[in-house]
């Protein structure tokens, strides 16, 4: 990974991955010996250990509501709320959480792209996030937009970024503390890091090159078949054709979430993505939806929970593919054939 400045994060992963100590003990140890580690870019907020997470490929990418409640005051941890509804944070949020809006903060409206390294550095610095900060992201709708924010953080190689399992709804359902007080973090220095898209982001030509390998369409069955071009009960966003990318399997994103918004356990996820959708270990996968947000959720599941190394999110998704000239689609409920090579 080109973003790592030193070897310590790997050391951290090794130690937590080996489950040498429980999370509480580990955190206590980290605090008491913090002075010894100052000057090193080592995350001091150890990963949570529990049975459900341990079954996932990368348990350190998730935290539970219990864990977050116990660690809210930890140094070097910043909680970020990222929602679909731009005003929801203002109605009450986890104490200390800062807000990042997927649309107004992370997108560059003029280039139909994500913000660049300078804008990202300015944004994160203004939220009190350094390159070494442990970031826990949560949001509405089963973390749909939180997963999208996490994916964008990953484009910039932010090392320690995690999701709150169950998101905003679970925190509230458990009657945990909320506040309308907006934190005013002291601005910190976040380095300008060049965004690296290749590993986890696919563009339209990449999808053509990818044909023959698995594609996952995470939209609703009606969008997949072409009956409609938006989610049920969502705004029409101007897609001309309805259908799906040839050969893509249909796995609506929300199937990865349980009723309480938490991720399903590993066994259930394997049954969906390997059993039903036919993925095998080692597969290279591209996921897409309508604008790349729902597929970020699936990207998180495939990459961090099931451990597929090579998963890309095609954020152009159906708004691009469905409208692009001389680009084939398939209508109906069957995946359809891989198209012949295009010249």
């Amino acid at each position, binding site marked *: 990974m080109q973003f790592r400045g030193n070897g310590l994060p790997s050391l951290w992963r090794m130690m937590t991955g080996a489950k040498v100590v429980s999370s509480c003990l580990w955190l206590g140890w980290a605090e008491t010996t913090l002075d010894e580690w100052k000057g090193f870019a080592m995350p001091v907020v150890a990963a949570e250990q529990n049975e459900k997470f341990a079954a996932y490929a990368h348990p350190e990418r998730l935290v539970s509501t219990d864990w977050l409640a116990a660690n809210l005051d930890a140094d070097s941890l910043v909680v970020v709320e990222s929602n679909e509804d*731009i*005003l929801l944070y203002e109605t009450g949020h986890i104490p200390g959480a800062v807000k990042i809006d997927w649309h107004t903060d992370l997108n560059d409206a003029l280039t139909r792209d994500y913000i660049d390294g300078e804008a990202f550095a300015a944004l994160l610095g203004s939220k009190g996030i350094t390159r070494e900060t442990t970031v826990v992201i949560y949001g509405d709708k089963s973390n749909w937009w939180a997963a999208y924010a996490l994916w964008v953080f990953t484009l910039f190689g932010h090392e320690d970024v995690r999701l709150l399992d169950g998101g905003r709804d679970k925190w509230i359902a458990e009657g945990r503390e909320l506040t309308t007080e907006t934190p005013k973090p002291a601005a910190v220095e976040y380095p300008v890091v060049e965004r690296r898209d290749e590993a986890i982001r696919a563009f339209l030509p990449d999808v053509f090159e990818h044909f023959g390998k698995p594609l996952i369409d995470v939209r609703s069955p009606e969008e997949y078949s072409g009956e409609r071009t938006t989610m049920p009960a969502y*705004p029409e966003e101007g897609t001309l054709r309805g259908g799906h990318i040839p050969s893509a399997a249909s796995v609506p994103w929300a199937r990865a979430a349980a009723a309480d918004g938490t991720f399903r356990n590993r066994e259930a996820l394997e049954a969906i993505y390997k059993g039903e959708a036919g993925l095998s270990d080692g597969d290279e996968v591209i996921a897409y939806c309508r604008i790349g947000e729902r597929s970020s959720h699936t990207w998180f599941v495939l990459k961090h929970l099931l451990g597929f190394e090579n998963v890309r999110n095609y954020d152009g998704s159906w708004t691009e593919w469905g409208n692009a000239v001389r680009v084939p689609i398939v209508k109906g409920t069957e995946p359809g054939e891989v198209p012949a090579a295009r010249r």
Partner: protein
Amino acid sequence: MNAQNIPAQLAEIIDDFQAMEEPERLQLLLEFSRSLPDLPEHLAGQPELLEQVVECQSPLFLTLEIGDGPEEPVEIYFSAPPEAPTTRGFAGVLHEGLNGLPAAEILAVPDDVPEQLGLTRAITPLRLRGMSAMLARIKRQITDARAAV
């Protein structure tokens, strides 16, 4: 009504938004979301009487009643959950800006009123589309109700 056919009570809201900086406009929209009245007793618990505005990101339902008399005053009712404050805010603006006005005045309101609030950049055009859809459905319901008489 002014030259643009915007009723005074709506024009006042637009002026309030326009007089503010963007972050304050979001706060004002949040206040509108809080002041949206609950459904009256005769509509509460009867979702089949309301029409869903599917263009909104979160579930929003609305219906209206046209009063007797030559002015045909329109009562508009909205229902949206508290976890959808942006959608509730849009509804709150339209409620305060249009409720009780004569049917003809509401029908004459320009369709691009949502864009005049100065929220397009702060909220994004995608989200603002929900508000345009609410206005369109209010107008259509008025037209339908009058045709049915």
